[in-house]
C-alpha cells in the first residue's frame, strides 16, 4: 500500500463524519488521548515526518520546541493558504477528507498543549470553507472536538479564518500578522512562532497536508510511515501535476519516486505526443529542470542536490513548444504582484525584473538586460526579511541560465 492521504479517494460522502468513522476515522485521536503528549510527540518524531508545505522542517522537532511553554497559552494554526502556482493538494484534503485534517489538528493540539486552533484558508476557497464548517460542526456534535474530547478532559476548539488574496500570507509569520488583523507582512525571525507567534504566544503552524498525515502515523506507528518512502525517505508526498501532460491531476507517491515516473506513468506523459522541454518540480518557486535533468528522485535532499527543491510538490510540465521567456514573464509578473512591499530589494527588484523581462518579450531587450536581471536576482537573494525574495529570484535566474539562447534570440540585435 503506497497511498496514505488518497487511500480513500472516491469513497462516497467521505466528507461526512459517519463515513469517515466507518473508514476507521477518529481511532487515532482516541489512541493519542490514551497516551502522554510527550509519547505522541515521540511517535511523530520517529516517523521522520517533515513539513509538506515546502520548507520540510521536521514536524516532531517543531512540537518538541513547544513543550517548554506548557504553562503558557499555545496556539495551533493550520496553514491552508494554498497559493504556490502549480499546487492544488490541500484543497483536495479539505474538500473530500476534512475530518482527517480535523483529527490531525486535534492530535497535534493535544501533543503541544494547544486549546485553540485556526484554519487559515485562502479567500478564494469559498466552497471548501463551507465543507469545513459543516465538518467542524459534526465533529463538535459527536464530541471529537470542543470541550473534553471523548471525555478525556482535553479541550480543543477550531476557528476558520479566511484570507483575502495574498500569496505572501502563506509565509507563517505573514499569516500570523494577517490573523492579527494587519497587512500580511512577514516578521523578522527570530523569534520563531514556537516562541512568540499569534498574539505573542507560542504557536505551532503546519500545512494542511502535514497535519493530515498524523492520524495514519499514530495508528500505524512510525515505521509504517517511514517504510513507504523509497530508499529510506519518509512517507509519501502529494504531487499536483499540471501543464502539458495527458492526465493532469493530484497523485500520491512515495517520497523518492523518480520525477520521470511521475510524468510518464502517473500523468501519462507529455500530451499530443510532443517532446519535453522542462519541468518545474515543486511549485513555481522551484527552479526548473531541463528534460535531460528529470532522472531525479522526488525528495528533499535529492532535489536540493539537483539545484532545485521539492517545495509544495506542484509539478508543472512544459512541452517542447513552450517559450521559456514567456514563462519567465508570467513568473516575474506574479512575484512583482505578490511582493508585500516591506523590503526595498524585493519591492523594487521584482518590478525591475518584470520590466526587463517584459521588454525582452516585446523584442525591445538590449544586450545587457540578461546580465542586469541576473544581477538583480543576486542582490535580492539574502537581503530580505522572508524567503519570498529567494523564491522570486531562483526560478527566473534558472530559466535564464538554462535557456539563455531563447532569451538572446529575442534581444534587439
Amino acid at each position, binding site marked *: 500500500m503506497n497511498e496514505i492521504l488518497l487511500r480513500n479517494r472516491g469513497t462516497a460522502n467521505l466528507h461526512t463524519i459517519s463515513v469517515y468513522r466507518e473508514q476507521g476515522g477518529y481511532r487515532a485521536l482516541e489512541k493519542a488521548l490514551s497516551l502522554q503528549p510527550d509519547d505522541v510527540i515521540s511517535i511523530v518524531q520517529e516517523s521522520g515526518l517533515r513539513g509538506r508545505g515546502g520548507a520540510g522542517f521536521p514536524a516532531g522537532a517543531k512540537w518538541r520546541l513547544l513543550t517548554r511553554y506548557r504553562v503558557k497559552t499555545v496556539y495551533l494554526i493550520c496553514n491552508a493558504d*494554498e*497559493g*504556490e*502556482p*502549480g*499546487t*492544488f493538494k490541500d*484543497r483536495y484534503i479539505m474538500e473530500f477528507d476534512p475530518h482527517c485534517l480535523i483529527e490531525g489538528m486535534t492530535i497535534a493540539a493535544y501533543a503541544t498543549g494547544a486549546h*485553540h486552533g485556526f484554519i487559515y484558508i*485562502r*479567500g*478564494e*476557497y*469559498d*466552497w471548501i470553507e463551507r465543507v469545513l464548517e459543516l465538518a467542524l460542526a459534526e465533529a463538535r456534535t459527536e464530541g471529537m472536538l470542543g470541550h473534553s474530547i471523548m471525555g478525556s478532559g482535553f479541550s480543543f476548539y477550531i*476557528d476558520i*479564518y*479566511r*484570507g*483575502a*488574496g*495574498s*500569496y505572501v500570507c502563506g509565509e507563517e509569520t505573514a499569516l500570523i500578522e*494577517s*490573523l*492579527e*488583523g*494587519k*497587512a*500580511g507582512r512577514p516578521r523578522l525571525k527570530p523569534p520563531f512562532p514556537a516562541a512568540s507567534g499569534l*498574539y505573542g504566544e507560542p504557536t505551532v503552524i503546519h500545512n494542511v497536508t502535514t497535519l493530515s498525515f498524523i492520524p495514519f502515523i499514530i495508528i500505524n506507528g512510525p515505521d509504517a510511515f517511514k517504510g513507504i518512502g523509497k530508499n529510506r525517505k519518509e512517507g509519501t508526498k502529494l504531487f*499536483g*501535476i*499540471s*501543464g*502539458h501532460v495527458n492526465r*493532469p*491531476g*493530484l497523485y500520491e507517491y512515495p517520497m523518492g519516486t523518480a520525477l520521470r515516473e511521475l510524468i510518464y506513468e502517473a500523468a501519462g506523459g507529455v500530451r499530443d505526443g510532443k517532446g519535453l522541454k522542462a519541468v*518545474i518540480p515543486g511549485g*513555481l518557486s522551484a527552479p526548473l529542470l531541463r528534460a535531460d535533468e528529470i532522472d531525479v528522485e522526488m525528495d528533499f535532499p535529492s532535489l536540493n542536490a539537483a539545484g532545485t527543491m521539492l517545495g509544495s510538490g*506542484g509539478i*508543472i510540465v*512544459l512541452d517542447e513548444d*513552450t517559450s521559456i521567456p514567456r*514563462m519567465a514573464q*508570467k*513568473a516575474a*509578473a*506574479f512575484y512583482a*504582484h*505578490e511582493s*508585500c512591499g516591506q523590503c526595498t530589494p524585493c519591492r523594487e527588484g521584482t518590478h525591475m525584473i518584470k520590466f526587463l523581462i517584459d521588454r525582452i518579450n516585446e523584442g525591445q531587450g538590449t544586450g545587457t538586460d540578461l546580465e542586469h536581471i541576473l544581477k538583480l536576482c543576486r542582490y535580492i537573494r539574502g537581503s530580505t526579511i522572508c524567503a519570498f525574495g529567494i523564491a522570486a529570484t531562483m526560478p527566473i535566474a534558472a530559466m535564464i541560465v538554462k535557456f539563455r539562447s531563447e532569451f538572446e534570440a529575442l534581444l534587439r540585435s
Partner: protein
Amino acid sequence: MIDAGLKKEIEGLMIKFPCIDSAILPSLTLIQERKGFISQGDMEELSRILKFSQARIFSVASFYSMLKLRPRGKYHLQVCTNISCSLLREKTLMEHLSRILGIGDGETTGDGLFSLEAVECLGSCGYAPAMMINSDHFENLGFDQVDRIIESLREKERAGGV
C-alpha cells in the same frame, strides 16, 4: 452605510476571537460580501465600531487583493493568468473574455454587469484553465462553455433576475 444588521454581525466577530484585532479582516470581508465593495464611509464607520484608527483599517483593506475599494460589476470575473492556466491553448482565457465582453483587465462593462480582473493562481492548476465569478469556481473551461456561462448570466438579467 453600515446598517444595524451588519453592525450586529460585526459585533459578533468582535467577540469571536481571542483578540479583537482578529475581527478587522473578517469585518471587511463581510462588508464586501453584503455591499459589493468597501467604501471610504464603510471604513470610517468600521473604525468607530472596532475602535481602531482609520489608518489601521485602511492599511488592511488596501493590502489584500480580494478586498475591493471601488464598485465592481454585478458579476466579477477573476481569471487566472498564471502558468498552468496559460499553457493549454494558443489564446488565454483572459484574452477570450476580454474580446467577448469588450473590456480589459480592471474594467467594467457599460451596463455594470461584468467586471474583469486578471488574478494569480486560484489553485486549479490540474483543472486549468480556471476562473471565478463572484465566489463561484469554474474549472476545465472551454471557450464555448465560457460563452454559454456569460450568455446565461445575460439571459438571467434580461429575464429580470435578482
